[in-house]
């Protein structure tokens, strides 16, 4: 009766899910930093943060954030349940939820049909998905695509 488990791999150690855990569809516990696995840390739907969020890995926000979010070299996703009242900066940004603040995507910003945005978007590459409707301002400068840092919005022409 003990034989049948002889080939089973040792179970991974379960750790309590932190406020920022990782997307992992395999149902195994999260260990590696999200940046090393290409996955995203998650700020869960019941989590509320007031203050500054910055980091060196991808992030999915499903909760509420008030303050600022800066992930200059990584991907930021505002999930459908996410409500962000903050200025946000990231390499690429996808918005499925609510954002009230200015949005700076150093490579790309994608806005989906479920989003609700109040603010200005600044990015070299912008995609408004089919069905999405946007009210506000979009600054686009394709010349700054893939240029990393130093991206600045277009300035208004003088009167």
């Amino acid at each position, binding site marked *: 009766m003990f034989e049948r488990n002889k080939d089973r791999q040792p179970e991974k150690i379960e750790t309590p899910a932190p406020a920022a855990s990782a997307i992992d569809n395999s149902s195994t516990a999260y260990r590696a930093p999200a940046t090393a696995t290409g996955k995203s840390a998650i700020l869960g739907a019941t989590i509320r943060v007031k203050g500054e969020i910055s980091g060196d890995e991808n992030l999915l926000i499903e909760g509420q954030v008030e303050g600022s979010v800066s992930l200059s070299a990584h991907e930021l996703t505002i999930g459908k349940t996410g409500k962000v009242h903050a200025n946000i900066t990231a390499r690429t940004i996808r918005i499925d939820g609510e954002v009230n603040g200015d949005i700076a995507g150093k490579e790309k910003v994608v806005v989906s049909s479920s989003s609700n945005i109040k603010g200005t978007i600044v990015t070299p*590459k*912008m*995609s*408004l*998905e*089919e*069905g*999405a*409707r*946007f*009210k*506000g*301002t*979009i*600054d*686009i*400068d*394709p*010349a700054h695509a893939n240029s990393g840092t130093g991206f600045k*919005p*277009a*300035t*208004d*022409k*003088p*009167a």
Partner: protein
Amino acid sequence: MLNTAEQFDNSGKQVLQTRLMPDLIEQLAGNSPLMVFDVGYGVHETVEFFGNRRCRLHFSALHTCLQTPPVIRSKIPFGQLPNADEQDTALYLAWLDRFRSALKFEQGTRFDLCLFWDFLNYLDDQALKAFADALAPFTGPQTLGHAYILLKSDADVLKREYGLKAADQISVRPVNPGSPVFYARPQARVTSMMKGFVVKHSVLRRDGLLEAALKRT
């Protein structure tokens, strides 16, 4: 000139052919950043179209300003005839205040292209004048515009959302804004109230809309 061109794209979306927009876009080819004012919501097609060049796109969704029009309450005692001019002035000022609140742009902003789509048809005379006056500080001698003007009140061309799919193609989606009040007017009456704009070219469409390319005087 009568334009009957109308078609559907691969997704079944209606597309209007435009002969006027290509000329407007070509005239603005050297403008960088291109400053675009769109009275409607930003939609997929418009963002994709302008997305390959340096530009600033302002989407104002001004139809939301029209959902509850201002109401002017007469201060004249009951039984006396109201002064029509005073009421018009009060209505104009109420609209002006509303549009100025909606059109708050950075100081020095000058638009190269104004996409009015069919918005002007939903404005009564006072609202139209107020809209033009509120927009005027953000236009300059080189500003161009595009509009669909409703000439016949029985034309079935309302409740639409527009996007610029290509220089010669305008996408159209049906929207449901309730039962909007609309105003059919001759071209000359519209431009007489659009401060500083004149019609450069126009094309009468079979559906009853007059497509107009506008420029500043």
